[in-house]
């Protein structure tokens, strides 16, 4: 890979580091409250459900369902110009949490609400791996 990666990169900080380090190992891990068991996407210090600071980072199945999708024709980021129109999906993981991502290896017309997906891991730079999904049904 000699071409520089031109899309926006995540801002990794002390709160979200476990998430990004897990992705580099090709594992999906999200914060879960050790007190009440509520899983969340955002790595807030306190559990929004009960206020506990006691957080664990379990590994998830990586399986889910497309909750919705949009096809971006407008180019908001230069790094996406060559791929437009590109897909963005909102995936609901089987564990309940929703997150935005992209479907890889499918035409935009195939990307529909209700389709089953599974996680795949895109090593976009030596430091950063993004969580993406592919269709499985």
């Amino acid at each position, binding site marked *: 890979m000699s071409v520089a990666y031109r*899309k*926006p*990169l*995540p*801002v990794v900080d002390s709160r979200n580091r476990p998430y990004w380090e897990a992705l580099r190992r090709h594992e999906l891990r999200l914060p879960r409250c050790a007190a009440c068991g509520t899983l969340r*996407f*955002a790595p807030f210090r306190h559990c*929004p459900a009960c206020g506990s600071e006691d957080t664990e980072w379990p590994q998830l199945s990586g399986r889910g369902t497309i*909750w*919705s*999708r*949009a*096809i*971006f*024709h*407008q180019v*908001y*980021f230069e790094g*996406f110009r060559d*791929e437009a*129109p*590109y897909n*963005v999906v*909102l995936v609901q993981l089987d564990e309940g949490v*929703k997150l*935005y*991502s*992209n479907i890889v290896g499918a035409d935009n017309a195939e990307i*529909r*609400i*209700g389709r089953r997906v599974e996680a795949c891991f895109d090593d*976009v730079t030596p430091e*950063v791996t*993004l969580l993406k999904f592919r269709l499985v049904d």
Partner: protein
Amino acid sequence: MTRRELSGVVAVAGVGTTKFGRLPGYSAEDLGIEAMDLALADAGLGRGDVDGLIVSRIPDYQQFCEMTGLDPRYVQITPGQGRMSGSSIQMAALAIAAGQCDVCALVYGNNGRSAGSKYGGEADRYGGAGGSVWFPYGMTSPGAAHAMQFERHAHLYGTTSLHLAEIAVAFRNHAVLNPDAVMRQPITVEDHQNSRFIAEPLHLFDYCLINDGGVALILTSAERARDMAKPPVYIRGFAQASALADVYVPPEDFWRDPMRRVAEEVYAMAGVTRDDMSALMIYDNFTPTVLFSLEGFGFCKPGESGPFVAEGQLRLGGRFPTNTSGGHLSDSYMQGWALNVEAVRQLRGECGDRQVKDASHVQFMLGSPIVSSIIYGKDPR
């Protein structure tokens, strides 16, 4: 004091709007000042009468007071988010009812067009800064979030882009009758369908405008308003609710639950029902928001808003003429503020070719993570 007793206690005495469009060289403060002076003149008042001030989208209330020579008893500022329009007006009504001020100027100034405001990309702060976490996937902009909500609605209920087109065309037809509107060229359903996709399934004509302008309203007690230059327009009901806890993704219910609660409260406070409404002002940042609001506020059943608008209900001459100014889609992107002014002007009978005959009650509805509604009446009760 019960909520019912607050109905009709506060009135709008003056409204003012600047020119809308591209107004280079004017700051948000400049536009707000112009609108405020117009609204005060409309009420037959001067700056010296103002003892309450709420500014919105104007970044600095302190500088605004320096620029206008105001020393209000009551001062507040709200962020430049459309959802704050309804909340700010409710805040002013409560401050007047509680005696914290007698004449409250609500002042909104927006120089976003000339200043190059962006609602997607690196500068996107829709609802806060949290959205940047999705930039690596190319996810950005309130429009894309609404596109996903609409895609979901279409999946569940069979709603189509043609239903959205009906909204865009109806509001454009209203703007054609409004000499102050930014977009006055008529459009057809085909024009809507042929406009380019931004975040598919939404087309360009599903999106609001971005333009400069200022809006102001002068609120005072109903009693005092009766002595002013224009007939008072009474604030008969107001309510709000939120769906903020899981705001990083669109709501499962299209904001139906907070809207239902707001509807119940606002009609009870105003002592009227949906059937009493002469016109509706629905926050139209994107066409799907109009559908969600009609369902959430009970104008049609859940999932039936597409066929409901297809009957032409929102057009002038329909059962509920909506956004008679042209709304955000075709009049001006004044983030809810100008829709409230249009409600007042309709009830005063000042709307010329777009006037709804014998307008008695107009309802403002705002669908967003903060839902709000205000019912304006020609009579105090």
